[in-house]
């Protein structure tokens, strides 16, 4: 596959692993957080941990939009399907997320609600066209990669004069998530959580550009490297971050130059601002309420807003008492620090969303990495030394 295989080459990986090993100083640790669910998955799936020196620590931040979606919003989606008899179109990942009382969209579907998995917002539009007598609601979630596709679908719905299509908008903003982490109490108090650098999201950055991260470097003196999607990109970005940290620099660097520039995708940005606007506040699972961190459909497109068409009361729902998803999302604890991890809470029976989405820190660790928890006494030899 072009632009894929070349960026997964094992020989190049060894080269980068060696370079990172040579670059790190032995008298300190490096704590790097990534904000992209795709990065969480790539790191786990390719086993990048084994190619890094032991004093480089990767923290999985809130880059998985399914994980930060509050339970109350999923309850609302289930209510739309069950009580309002709509055709609820949703991306696959959301279907199994546990909501209140152990319900989920998948369980609602099994009980007879018309919940349909779609690959694209265009599919939801098509379903609306094919079912003019039914209301169709598109459960729109995601960071800035998925937001423009929702905007396009809503615009097309208006152009087509569709009367039965609305979107339930839950789009969230990456810079706000980053700021939420940087402002979190554990970080601001020295000693609780160390964060030395940020691996910036890949595809979100193709849309928003590199400029929105500049406040991170300037206001928080935190280096950022925007990393491409493939494992070699991630390793190269780690190298670049370590280089910055050692030199005491705090800048935004771009490793993903083949797809990202400073401005981003202006057309996509224009489409988003045409259809959507900022919400003053939005509750994030694990991060609490963050100001100006999410989007809703604006007045010009009010006819396509599910929240205006249907009465969907929102009830904030707390996580299970023992669930540590919130602190895990903020990098305060690791999955194995959670009492429920691997016992009560497994991918088969997730208690919190970090375990449902395969990008969630807990699911990724459980599925790809939990064997390491049993081996901490006898460390696995690193591939770079093989």
């Amino acid at each position, binding site marked *: 596959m072009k632009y894929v295989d070349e960026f997964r080459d094992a020989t190049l*990986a060894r080269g980068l692993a060696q370079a990172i090993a040579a670059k790190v100083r032995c008298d300190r640790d490096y704590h790097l957080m990534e904000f992209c669910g795709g990065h969480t998955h790539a790191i786990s799936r390719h086993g990048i941990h084994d190619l890094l020196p032991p004093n480089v620590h990767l923290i999985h931040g809130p880059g998985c939009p399914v994980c930060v979606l509050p339970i109350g919003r999923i309850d609302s989606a289930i209510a739309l399907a069950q009580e309002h008899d709509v055709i609820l179109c949703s991306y696959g990942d959301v279907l199994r997320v546990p909501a209140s009382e152990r319900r989920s969209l998948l369980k609602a579907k099994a009980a007879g609600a018309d919940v349909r998995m779609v690959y694209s917002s265009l599919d939801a539009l098509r379903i609306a066209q094919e079912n003019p007598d039914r209301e169709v609601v598109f459960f729109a979630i995601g960071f800035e990669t998925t937001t423009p596709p929702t905007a396009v679908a809503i615009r097309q719905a208006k152009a087509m004069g569709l009367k039965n299509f609305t979107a339930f908008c839950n789009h969230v903003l990456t810079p706000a998530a980053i700021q939420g982490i940087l402002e979190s109490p554990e970080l601001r108090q020295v000693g609780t959580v160390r964060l030395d650098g940020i691996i910036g999201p890949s595809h979100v950055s193709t849309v928003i550009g590199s400029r929105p991260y500049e406040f991170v470097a300037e206001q928080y003196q935190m280096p950022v490297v925007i990393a491409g999607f493939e494992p070699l990109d991630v390793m190269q970005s780690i190298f670049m971050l370590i280089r910055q940290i050692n030199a005491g620099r705090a800048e935004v660097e771009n490793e993903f130059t083949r797809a990202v520039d400073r401005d981003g995708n202006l057309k996509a940005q224009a489409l988003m601002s045409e259809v959507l606007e900022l919400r003053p506040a939005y509750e994030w699972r694990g991060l609490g309420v963050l100001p100006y961190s999410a989007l809703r459909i604006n007045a010009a497109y009010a006819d396509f807003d599910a929240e205006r068409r249907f009465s969907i009361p929102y009830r904030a729902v707390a996580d299970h008492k023992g669930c540590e998803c919130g602190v895990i999302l903020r990098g305060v604890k690791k999955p194995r620090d959670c009492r429920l991890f691997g016992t009560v809470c497994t991918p088969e029976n997730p208690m919190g969303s970090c375990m449902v989405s*395969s990008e969630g820190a807990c699911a990724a660790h459980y599925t*790809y990495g939990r064997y390491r928890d049993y081996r901490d006494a006898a460390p696995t030899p690193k*591939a770079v030394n093989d």
Partner: protein
Amino acid sequence: MDDLRKRSNLRPLDWRQGRVDMTHGSGGRASAQLVDELFLRAFDNDWLRALNDQACFLVSSGRMVAATDSHVVSPLFFPGGDIGCLSVHGTINDVAMAGAKPLYLTAGFILEEGFPLRDLRRIVDSMAAAAREADVAVIAGDTKVVEQGKGDGVFITTTGIGVVPEGVHISGDRARPGDRILLSGTIGDHGVAIMSLREDLRFGTTVASDTAALHGLVASMVAAVPDIHCLRDPTRGGLATTLNEIAQQSGVGMRIRELPIPVRPQVKAACEFLGLDPLYVANEGKLVAICPPVEAERLLAAMQAHPLGVDAAIIGEVVEDSHHFVEMETAFGGRRMVDWLTGEQLPRIC
């Protein structure tokens, strides 16, 4: 059977536009006509022609094997095969995974009222062809019809009977530390072929199901290496599930390498596109073999010499591990676990 038609004034079955109806399952004349014009004609052997409710056959001395499988695949027709040949291959393979020679099959059909006879004949003909090619006879069968809406067109259950040669002891609990793990060919073909036809995914691919009867391959493997410890075909849940099952049964761990595992470029692309892991995607014409280390090269050669094993590879070894973990060295050079499958693999968007 023309007597039957003359006696009962039954019109011949309308293969072009006819559909299954409730009378076809009631046991009366319409049922008999269906058996005669469809099943007997396709499978055509002495057992079925005897028209008894059972089939009588001689039992050789030694160990007999029985296996049964129900087939509910949707869609019924897919690139590379259909539910018919799949049901024959699947059960033959279950029998073959004991190292046994498959002898007989039975076939039970649950038909949905309204199912086109044209499609039914296509499926039955496909089954017959698969059985003939495998030199296995379908000696008994049954047909029931359920009301429209209560079935997915057709469900087929096949049971297979075989005999295990002397000196062959193949079982999932026989993997031992040091054993080598071999795979007969590319993974993910069947699952991707099926998924490409899903309404909600809509992608075009030339990947075809790998559905095939593996008993010939198994016979040549057992001839080369009688002391094969384990054989299993990685169907639902893919290679990952099969390896975890055997690890659990045998009380061992496994260490495999991603690089030697053969995956077709189109299958890889489909998995990238859908966010699936080929290790968990179903196969219907592949097998995993576990053998003592000294036999590995000979076994590999025997597999590669057979048309269904040309892409065979040694992919890892069995180790001691009280947790029964299956670990993999990734093509990238890192390590990860290959865990049990969780729920159904939904195409990932994230």
